[in-house]
């Protein structure tokens, strides 16, 4: 049973526009969420996180929104750049536990120049 779901396997966006990547989760105990970016043949790199006590976190061009009632989070990238083309994974964990993260299946973002 997939506890963290990324229902869009791919997304194409024009350079300069907004990219919105979505993630849904089923376990209401999850209270810490991360986004990672992964280029081919490299390990994932941390992008941004959000705790369940917040509904928004910003870091430069990247903003993560959390809607706890809908069990949904989204990553907004504004403006999108060709270098943002990668696979994006969301991950969720229960704080206070072993902090092992459950990952979604990933969304491949392609930013078109």
């Amino acid at each position, binding site marked *: 049973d997939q506890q963290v779901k*990324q229902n869009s*396997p791919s997304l194409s966006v024009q350079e300069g526009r907004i990219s919105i990547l979505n993630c849904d989760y089923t376990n209401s105990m999850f209270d*810490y969420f991360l986004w990672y970016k992964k280029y081919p043949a490299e*390990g994932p*790199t941390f992008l941004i996180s959000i*705790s369940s006590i917040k509904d928004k976190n910003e870091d430069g061009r990247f903003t993560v929104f959390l809607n706890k009632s809908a069990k949904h989070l989204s990553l907004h990238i504004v403006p999108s750049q060709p270098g943002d083309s990668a696979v994006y994974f969301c991950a969720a*964990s229960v704080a206070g536990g*072993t*902090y*092992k993260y459950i990952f979604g299946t990933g969304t491949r973002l392609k930013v078109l120049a």
Partner: protein
Amino acid sequence: DVKVTQSSRYLVKRTGEKVFLECVQDMDHENMFWYRQDPGLGLRLIYFSYDVKMKEKGDIPEGYSVSREKKERFSLILESASTNQTSMYLCASMKTGPYGYTFGSGTRLTVV
């Protein structure tokens, strides 16, 4: 910056071989993890360790074992490699608390 080093970027092994994947981190993190990444399946947790000599099974431990004799090193062992273990293997470490992982660069293992 914390660094997680995986000993091999690419490996080709034969079916039935015993395979060792090594991972070393240099920031004294308590927690270390092994994931595999497959297309359409995302990252799936194989094993993790929260202390030296401690280990716990993840979601897909079958066919794998691990060893953590020193805090900085976490080894993944494929007891008898099979073709369905062809995958990208990712090691990660993390200090205890609400933090993210730092991943290594990955090992692309092909079993023929």
